[in-house]
């Protein structure tokens, strides 16, 4: 399928001919995002510069029934920007201006294509913190973060993207430009469309501008590491820490398989006899950070930790965090296809869930190692197989089906932070039920009567 020449011409009139690409080789790089195994070639790639241009493109698409897939950096892991029905990939990376950083109001206003890291740096330059820190922050866009309600390593203490979005400018599929929320922390005028758009995965509107809340930059951060004989011990230690009234900024875990893979890859000197590694960190005033970390260390020791180390300085703190940062690279080197999932369970059931994952992996004979965010129960079971081994890939898919079912059975969810996209749509009804699925479709239809915006994803 390719677009009518008149349509291509009209798109060129809207955004400028240089920003409409339809060559085979121009489209191929947009056939994928960061999700393995999904490929769908669009018919055109269009890069608008303003909300008005986005509106004109969407009006054209609604009139002609052409699918439009909004895309930021394409770093999502849910096939959320997959053009599996062709259509127009609408790339927002040219909208990359930071419009405002306001220390007085503790907020920032940015265009959708600004990278998360650029926002973070601009805020830091004024002594402020943009708290959400998804793993792909150097490349991901703020628009993409809001569209997927991106999480990150600081979820327990700081929450996720939705906790920081104050307002948006969004373009509806029918071409209206709406402003939701704004510069206010308190504003209950109407349905909370800001929240609805946050995490809507580009199916309800195209975000073009976002206002986010900032925080004062914490004075210091520090980190410690503890080894436990089993993940269950680590889980009990985490429960004890939070029961003690401490909400640490960082609480990350690696299971034994991850520890092994990381050590093999990076030679960090990790203990290979441990069943779990827990990284904990906090930020704030120096004395409070030190007090909290010391107390967390004591609680770990009280819960059978084999060894506890507190970082002496920032450099050492970075070295400790390296184990967590190395997890994905280390695991991805074990094969040629890395499937990274993000099933999430209530925090106290984390160890139980990892146990279930291990059972499932064994049953389907696929290697699954798990790391993740112990503070918020968000796990990253990671399966690494040979890209050309169809049987193993099939078994991996079945295994993950069971993992999602197990998570739902523990009052958990199929995705904590990656999103549904095309990849997890088949599992969504198991999580939401038929009534909610029907409501999602009605909401989708209210925003997008022609069904042109990111079809085959949420709301389909």
């Amino acid at each position, binding site marked *: 399928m390719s677009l009518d020449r008149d349509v291509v011409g009209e798109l060129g009139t809207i955004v400028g*001919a*240089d*920003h*409409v*690409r339809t*060559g*085979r*080789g*121009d489209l*191929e*790089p*947009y*056939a*994928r*995002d*960061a*999700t*393995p*195994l*999904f*490929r*769908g070639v669009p018919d055109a*790639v269009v*890069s608008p510069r303003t909300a008005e241009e986005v509106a004109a493109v969407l009006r054209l698409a609604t009139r002609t029934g052409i699918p439009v897939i909004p895309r930021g*950096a*394409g*770093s999502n892991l849910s*096939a959320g920007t997959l053009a*599996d029905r062709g259509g127009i990939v609408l*790339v927002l*990376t*040219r909208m*990359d201006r930071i419009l405002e950083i306001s220390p007085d109001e503790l907020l920032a206003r940015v265009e959708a294509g600004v*990278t998360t*890291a650029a926002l973070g740096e601009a805020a830091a330059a004024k002594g402020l913190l943009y708290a959400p820190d998804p793993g*792909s922050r*150097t*490349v991901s866009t703020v628009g993409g973060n809001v569209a997927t309600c991106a999480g990150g390593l600081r979820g327990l203490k700081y929450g996720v993207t939705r906790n920081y979005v104050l307002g948006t400018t969004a373009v509806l599929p029918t071409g209206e430009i709406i402003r939701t929320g704004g510069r206010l922390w308190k504003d209950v005028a109407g349905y909370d469309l800001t929240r609805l758009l946050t995490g809507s995965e580009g199916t309800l509107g195209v975000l073009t501008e976002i206002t986010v809340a900032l925080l004062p930059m914490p004075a210091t951060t520090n980190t410690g590491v503890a080894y436990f004989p089993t993940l269950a011990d680590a889980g009990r230690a985490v429960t004890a820490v939070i029961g003690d009234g401490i909400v640490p900024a960082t609480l990350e875990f690696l299971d034994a398989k991850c520890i092994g893979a990381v050590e093999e890859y990076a030679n960090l000197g990790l203990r290979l006899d441990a069943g779990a590694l827990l990284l904990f960190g906090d930020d704030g005033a120096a004395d409070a950070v030190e007090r909290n970390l010391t107390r967390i260390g004591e609680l770990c020791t009280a819960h059978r930790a084999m060894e506890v180390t507190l970082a002496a300085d920032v450099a050492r703190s970075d070295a400790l965090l390296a184990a967590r940062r190395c997890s*994905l*690279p280390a695991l*991805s*080197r074990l094969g*040629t*296809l*890395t499937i990274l999932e993000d099933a999430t369970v209530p925090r106290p059931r984390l160890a139980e869930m990892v146990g279930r994952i291990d059972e499932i992996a064994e049953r389907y004979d696929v290697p699954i190692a798990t790391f993740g965010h112990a503070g918020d129960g968000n796990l990253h079971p990671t399966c690494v197989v040979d*890209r*050309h081994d*169809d049987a193993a890939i099939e078994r991996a898919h079945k295994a993950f089906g069971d993992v999602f079912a197990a998570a739902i059975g523990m009052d958990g969810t199929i995705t904590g932070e990656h999103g549904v996209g*095309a990849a997890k749509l088949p599992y969504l009804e198991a999580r939401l039920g038929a009534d909610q699925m029907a409501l999602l479709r009605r909401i989708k239809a209210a925003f997008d009567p022609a069904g042109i915006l990111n079809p085959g994803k949420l709301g389909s």
Partner: protein
Amino acid sequence: MTTDRVTGRGIFDPELLDRCISCGFCLPACPTYAQTLDEGSSPRGRINLMRALETGELDDDDSRLREEASFCLGCRACEPVCPAGVQYGQLLETWRDHQWRGRRRPPLAQLLMLVASRTPLLRAIGVVRRHARTPSVPAAPTTLMLGCFERGLYPGVSRSARALLPDIAVPADQGCCGALHAHNGESERGVELARRLGEQLPGVIVTTAGGCAAHLTTVLGRDRVHELSEHLVKTGASPVGRLSVGGRRARVALQDSCHLRNGMGVFAEPRALISAVADLVAVPGEASCCGAAGTYSLLRPRDSRRILDPKLDAIEAADLDYVVAVNPGCLRQLETGLRRRSSKVRAVHLADLLAAAAGGTPLPSGRRWTLPRIRVPARRAGAARTTGGPTA
């Protein structure tokens, strides 16, 4: 759903292509992506183009495919930031081997490779230009590589290196390392030339060219090759003297050599050496490509200048006396660009800077002859690129 697993044509090593997990972490590191903000000019996008070439989704003559094989600087800035360890430089070499095979190769690249392969010609140029020489010492533990074009363009660099390393042997009978060939679609010839140079130069090969060092390393192994700054630091040689301008310590910045930094992980060493004799000034963008990129500045002068210009702005804004290069291509690029602007900042090779500090001698006053500036119209693929930035 469509899967991305299709059997290949055998152009690429499937293991190398499969390594990419498409996370996109390379995008912010890529100078050409920064120019266009178009996925197709990013490392991840180019790997997807390579995959489409491999599967036959795109044929060899696809205009974007051809454009991107040439538009890529080959700076390998994507490699250190890649969590999956993709060997992008290797993939690019294979891609250009295929894309630039036979008559598809840019004629200018072909000509340069032809000249560089002629060792007697290089020797003759060296004699005329008076590069460093020693009585031949076959059993010397370290030998100095003279380079192909470097010995004609910057013969003083080898003389300075020899002054810094009095015990080093400089055999006159040495050819090109083959990096030029490896990066311009003749990677097999590149390997062959590197092997031959390995035979001509016994022991540890010390080179004043970061790009050559990285290429030689891939063929001869990491232990046999030292870039000059790396060698000086490894052997514990501490720089002597100090470099002054108008009675104060000179203000000096470093322009990293991409392959030295991204391919070999050498970037602290030259900085340590400069700091010992002058005030090292950090300049924004100093670690990213200057646009020389081997033959790139000749093959794509307009794009090369788009990369270079913001760098020159930063250099001029930093109130420097010297900007140091550790690769002849970068030196030529900076020198040409600064001269075009009539800048007061001078581009010098690290060897010359250190030798001048040690000897208290003035730095060489620049080249007396040069390669003619060859104008090649930049090939452009339709609307492949957004406009913006100064034009050549």
